[in-house]
């Protein structure tokens, strides 16, 4: 389904849409408070953007450097060209250890690759251990936000879900009680897991180390107990030096949730003693993006700030995007992969530019969304109706006489058409009038008033005030 239909369904429940909007705006305001407390905030953004653009421009070199260093530290490095290969690699690692139970900390990449259903089909039990992810996993739905996967679910609904799956008391909705129940449940999962899988926030070329940021410590529990750690990363997660990390760690949590830093920033340099560390580096279309005018979308550090600030996302909900990464950044990344299915996403945007100003790595998000529309037009995916309308408009505006004629006709039509007809979906104005009143048509256009005023002046009249 296209975004507008899903968005309309979401906004139709005004109270809920408003609650969702406020929940995310609260996070945006926390971000503002945190960011304003850092005097060099804008310099940090500049620096992060420069580091990312530098890294992407030398991607191949840094990838090789990272691989060499990671191997020196004892990690096994795998390369996956696409989602299918990534999933096969993960499955093969698990099978080689006879692993049946996998605990995962949050990884948008594995969502992108649809790893969970693939592993489950192959007889592996997969438990998402991030609280929000566990909630959506139990509800059998995808995350609606990349940092706050269950932001669309109210605590009462979490209570119902936990009552059904974890045996909590019926009707319980106290966050502390529910979190404790989830904690006890997840501890058991950690203890009996055969392997742990994590995402990667930053991979450092200089050291071969990886850094994973969580608030719940679930990446540490998931990799500390089982002997096998699989870390999956998109190749754009690279940064050149350990020193660069300071820039990104200061930006990430402040932008994401308005915290000074994530509760856990865990550094992994090679496997734990007696264990194995597998790093799977995934392309899955990223090389193509790197070659395109949308390359800066690869600078994204997945903080989710663009979602929290997006007035459309907040009111339409993450699921309306039908995309692993929703919101502004998702509306660039996803149509690059599946333009036919996701052609409505770049238009789910008023081009307000708030995302661009909030982005910690200064991706010109709304300009990319603007460019993405042209990209889709090039693929003939903006819809024949709209295309025809724009051709017609362009033809009218290109001819001043025709524009003047059309303008007068439109104003006259607005004046004489009966309301029921004007506001019916049959007229072009009706689409506008569905939600709001159509502007009253003035008898004269500006150019007519202006010409009259000029003529009056030329005639030496002093009464040139009546034009308003």
């Amino acid at each position, binding site marked *: 389904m296209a975004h507008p239909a899903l968005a309309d369904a979401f906004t*139709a429940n005004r109270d809920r849409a408003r609650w969702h909007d406020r929940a995310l705006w609260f996070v945006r305001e926390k971000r503002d408070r945190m960011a304003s407390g850092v005097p060099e905030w804008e310099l940090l953004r500049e620096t992060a953007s420069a580091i990312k653009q530098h890294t992407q421009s030398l991607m191949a070199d840094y990838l090789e450097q990272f691989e060499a260093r990671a191997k020196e530290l004892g990690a096994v490095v795998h390369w996956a060209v696409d989602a299918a290969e990534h999933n096969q690699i993960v499955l093969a690692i698990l099978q080689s250890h006879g692993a049946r139970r996998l605990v995962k900390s949050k990884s948008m990449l594995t969502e992108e690759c649809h790893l969970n259903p693939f592993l489950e089909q192959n007889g592996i039990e997969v438990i998402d251990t991030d609280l929000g992810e566990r909630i959506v996993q139990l509800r059998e739905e995808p995350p609606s936000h990349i940092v706050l996967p269950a932001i669309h679910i109210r605590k009462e609904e979490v209570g119902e879900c936990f009552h059904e799956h974890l045996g909590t008391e019926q009707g319980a909705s106290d966050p502390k009680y529910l979190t404790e129940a989830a904690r006890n449940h997840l501890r058991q999962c950690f203890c009996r897991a055969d392997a742990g899988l994590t995402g990667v926030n930053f991979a450092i070329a200089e050291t071969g180390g990886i850094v994973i940021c969580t608030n719940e410590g679930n990446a540490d529990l998931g990799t500390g107990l089982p002997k096998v750690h699989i870390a999956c990363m998109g190749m754009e997660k690279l940064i050149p030096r350990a020193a660069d990390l300071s820039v990104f760690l200061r930006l990430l949590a402040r932008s994401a949730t308005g915290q000074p830093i994530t509760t856990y920033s865990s550094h992994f340099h090679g496997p734990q003693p007696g264990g194995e560390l597998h790093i799977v580096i995934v392309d899955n279309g990223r090389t193509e993006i790197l070659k395109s005018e949308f390359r800066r979308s690869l600078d994204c550090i997945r903080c989710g700030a663009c979602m929290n600030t997006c*007035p459309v996302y907040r009111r339409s909900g993450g699921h309306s995007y039908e995309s692993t990464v929703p919101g502004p950044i998702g509306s660039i990344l996803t149509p690059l992969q599946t333009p036919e299915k996701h052609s409505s996403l770049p238009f789910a945007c008023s081009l307000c530019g*708030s995302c661009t100003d909030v982005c910690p790595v200064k991706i010109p998000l*709304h300009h990319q969304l603007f460019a993405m529309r042209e990209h889709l037009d090039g693929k003939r995916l903006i819809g024949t109706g*709209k295309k025809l309308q724009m051709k017609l408009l362009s033809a009218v505006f290109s001819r001043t006489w025709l*524009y003047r004629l059309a303008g007068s006709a439109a104003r006259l039509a607005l004046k004489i058409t009966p309301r029921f007809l004007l506001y019916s979906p049959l007229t072009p104005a009706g689409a*506008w009038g569905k*939600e709001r009143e159509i502007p009253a048509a003035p008898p004269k256009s500006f150019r007519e008033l202006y010409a009259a005023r000029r003529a009056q002046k030329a005639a030496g009249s002093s009464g040139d005030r009546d034009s308003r």
Partner: protein
Amino acid sequence: MKVALFIPCYVDQFYPHVGMATVALLEAFGVQADFPEAQTCCGQPMANSGCMDEARPLAEKYINVFRDYDYIVSPSGSCVSMVRNHYDHLVAEGDRVAVEVRQRTVELSEFLLQVLKITDVRGKFPWQVGVHQSCHGLRELRLGPSSEVMAPRDSLLQQLLGGLDGIRFSQLSRRDECCGFGGTFAVAEAGVSAMMGEDRINDHQQAGTQVLTAGDMSCLMHLEGLIRRRGVNMRVMHFAEILAEAMAL
């Protein structure tokens, strides 16, 4: 100084009094602006729809119409931003005339404060004014501080209106959230668009706004449509109209 007026197509057709207020205002500050008759639309509706081939003839027409002027002044941040920031793909690279016409295209408050450098505006406007920060003026032309960016910046609109006798400004809970107009977005995503506008109006109502103003009539067309539909008691005026009324032009 040869100054031309660029009046956006929808202002020409639906809000002629905003154009006339702009004329009166410029005259009051000693500027006789021409209105080149051949102008129509900057091409933004087509460009925002991804239809660059359809926008291109309008960009070319714009450059042609306004090539002989020192300044092209428009009471619309959004259309000015289209010309200044988004004509790259539409006009030939290295076309000096196009580059200059684009640079010389300025929004009304920019022209008054940064070109004419007017310092005090005298007039009376004894109302509580709610300023809607139109996004393109704010985040593309930087006519004011955007709430996301942690760097100080003056608001041109507040500077222009702030000196009027009796004027008060509303304190909004979200000072620069989008109204949800967004051109074809208003129709394509009608549900979200209407809710965005509704939320802005609610914010202005709780803040006690009597007169709602902005630098772009397009935002105000959408908000006024919602205000009328809901029967809200709030006057809607472009800031040029406020200045013209306050200065009794």
